[in-house]
């Protein structure tokens, strides 16, 4: 018993201790698992939060680069407000000794740049962006290739947030590319928000005016009359009509902020005629008299911009105030969309103001003064006005009596070329062919796009007012070939009443203060309104997007409501699809920055 008793005496305790040991091991295992589970959950959260923080860093960089393409300031430990984490962006600005965590900004260069990924690994107008994010114990790295697009995205040649108003001859069409010329249907749209009341209307000025829009004409406005091209459907063609259309989102360009962000760029010297390459800042209202060449340049104007001449080349214009162009070939480039105009105020585009140019030549106080011009130019201007008044007041040719017909012939003779006139001039006293004389005077000026245009235009005018040897032949030539040489005199003398309105219309289109043809090759974006008149050609796209109501009154009294597009007296807009597809055509300066590809995340 004692042996047995002694042997059993420790069994209870031993059993208890053993059970306790087993239980403790089980509970400990449970505790370890629970803690691991907690760590896994916490890590999963940290990983997710870090990934979203990387995305936040990329978005922040995109935003900054859109405002300032040259941005290369390090962002170190940028805290997120609601998450216990931060992101870091460091830039390599030396171009050498690249580190894996360093980004490379090549946004403003037309050439390839080196990076940690090797030589020429960052394409032109791109940035290799490395964002390091840390949340809790988790660090994540995102590596993306950002690319800047200098144009606004649009699939239509004309978009507005307000009304679209057309007058006179209008044609809106499109091509795949200027190289191939393959036509594509191109429509116009107004309305970027639900409930918008923008309307689209066309007014026929002259009997031969026609309107053509090869694509769909659409407005968000549900009203039945929201699209109104007049009662006579034979004089217009639309590729389709849609009222109560869906709003089309258009991304806004914050022009004032872009200009402010680039206020540190070199100041543009006064009187500059050739800008670039690079970025330039002008601190006030800028008036350019003459021709301006953009050489791969971005110009930020913190004020109004007025251009009395032509702009050519490749570049972008950011204008903080209103923009006025008065001249032929207002903005153009040789091959593709290389010019973008971003105006915070309204934009006014008018044909070349021949009066201003020729007034200058006839002004004794001007350095361009020419005494003969002081005689010829007032004669030409007065005769043109008198002739047009006579034609306007007699819409029916039959109402002209013999004396009035003789007056027409006399005026035409004074203006235009006489067949028998021999060079230099048939009448040294200046009684005839003043347009020819003025043309030759202009031709003697320093050659430039403006002068070349004016000489060509004066020659064209002169031929319209030529007195033909055979009136019947001149009319037949016009009817067969559209050649208006001698048409006014021929119609007046022959009594061909049916052609009198046409002759009157042609005379109107050649009013001397509107003799130009505005030609814009590029994209126009305005946060105000857009007004253009006098044979305006736009190759590219036009966007007037305003989120607030208001109007702009230009010095000549023209009132432009914000968000409206108003095109008068002969307009042609040709949309070029390739302009908005191909990044190689992007414009210099600030522009949209998108993620082209994620290289690591």
């Amino acid at each position, binding site marked *: 018993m004692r042996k047995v008793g002694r042997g059993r*005496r420790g069994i209870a305790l031993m059993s208890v201790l053993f059970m*306790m040991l087993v239980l*403790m091991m089980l509970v400990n295992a449970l*505790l370890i698992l629970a803690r691991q589970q907690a760590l896994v*959950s916490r890590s999963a959260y940290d990983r997710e939060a870090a990934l979203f*923080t990387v995305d*936040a860093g990329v978005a922040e960089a995109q935003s900054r680069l859109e405002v300032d393409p040259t941005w290369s300031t390090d962002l170190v430990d940028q805290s997120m407000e609601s998450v216990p984490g931060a992101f870091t962006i460091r830039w390599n600005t030396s171009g050498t000794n690249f580190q894996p965590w360093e980004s490379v900004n090549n946004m403003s260069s037309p050439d390839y740049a080196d990076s940690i990924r090797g030589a020429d690994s960052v394409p032109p107008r791109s940035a290799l962006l490395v964002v390091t994010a840390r949340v809790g114990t988790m660090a994540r790295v995102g590596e993306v290739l950002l690319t800047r697009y200098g144009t606004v995205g649009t699939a239509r040649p004309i978009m507005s947030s307000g009304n679209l108003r057309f007058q006179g001859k209008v044609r809106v069409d499109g091509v795949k590319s200027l190289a191939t010329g393959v036509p594509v249907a191109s429509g116009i749209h107004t309305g970027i928000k639900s409930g918008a009341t923008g309307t689209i209307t066309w007014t026929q000025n002259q009997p031969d005016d026609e309107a053509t829009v090869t694509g769909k004409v659409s407005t968000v406005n549900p009203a039945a009359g929201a699209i109104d091209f007049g009662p006579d459907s034979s004089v217009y063609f639309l590729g389709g009509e849609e009222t109560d259309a869906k709003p089309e989102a258009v991304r806004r360009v914050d022009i004032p902020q872009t200009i402010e962000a680039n206020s540190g760029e070199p100041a543009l010297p006064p009187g500059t005629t050739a800008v670039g390459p690079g970025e330039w800042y002008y601190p006030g209202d800028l008036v350019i008299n003459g021709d301006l060449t953009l050489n791969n340049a971005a110009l930020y104007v913190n004020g109004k911009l007025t251009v009395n001449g032509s702009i050519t080349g490749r570049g972008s214009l950011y204008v903080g105030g209103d923009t006025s162009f008065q001249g032929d070939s207002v903005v153009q480039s040789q091959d593709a969309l290389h010019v973008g105009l971003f105006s915070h105020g309204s934009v006014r585009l008018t044909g070349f103001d021949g009066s201003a140019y020729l007034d200058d030549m006839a002004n004794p106080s001007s350095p361009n003064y020419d005494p003969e011009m002081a005689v010829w130019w007032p004669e030409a201007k007065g005769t043109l006005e008198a002739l047009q008044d006579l034609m306007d007041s007699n819409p029916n040719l039959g109402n002209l009596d013999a004396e009035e017909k003789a007056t027409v012939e006399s005026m035409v003779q004074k203006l235009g070329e006489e067949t028998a006139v021999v060079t230099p001039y048939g009448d040294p006293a200046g009684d005839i062919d003043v347009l020819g004389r003025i043309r030759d005077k202009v031709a003697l000026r320093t050659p430039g796009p403006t002068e070349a245009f004016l000489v060509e235009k004066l020659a064209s005018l002169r031929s319209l007012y030529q007195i033909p040897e055979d009136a019947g032949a001149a009319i037949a030539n016009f009817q067969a070939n559209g050649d208006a040489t001698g048409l006014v005199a021929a119609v007046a003398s022959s009594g061909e009443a049916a052609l009198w309105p046409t002759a009157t219309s042609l005379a109107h289109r050649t009013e001397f203060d509107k003799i130009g043809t505005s030609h814009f090759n590029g994209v126009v974006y305005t946060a105000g309104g857009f007004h253009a008149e006098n044979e305006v050609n736009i190759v590219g796209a036009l966007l007037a997007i305003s989120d607030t109501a208001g109007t702009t009154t230009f010095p000549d009294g023209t009132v432009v409501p914000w968000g409206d597009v108003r095109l008068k007296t002969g307009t042609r807009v040709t949309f070029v699809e390739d302009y908005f597809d191909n990044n190689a055509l992007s414009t210099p300066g600030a522009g949209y920055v998108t993620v082209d590809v994620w290289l690591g995340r």
Partner: protein
Amino acid sequence: MRLRLRQGVTLMEILIAIGIVAIAILALVAVFISGTKLVAQSQEVATGTQVARAELERIRDSGYDRVPDTDLTFDGRIPDATVSGFPPLPYPSSPEGYQVVVTVSQRGYYLKSVTVEAHWGSDQRVVLQTYLHP
């Protein structure tokens, strides 16, 4: 006497053992319950993270323009009404008893901040935040 003494000691042993076991088991049960709660909480955090992530990705996928331009908070626990379809469905309902709170704010040029909180229980939540750019 010795036998009685031995029997008494054995009884004491048993009583002490029972006491120790009871105390130990109580402690172990407490630890077990605590561990179980920890596991449950971890699962809740994981689920909350998934709920918040799903909501944030839905917002991102719906597009930059759908996010309001003004600083707003949409509390799915009340719930606040949507504005022009924002936040996207299934807001305000959320799976498994979770409620989401969405806060949007403007941060800069074409830059919006979106914060999603997934709430559960009495005062539990996870928060995810990112910035959006078109």
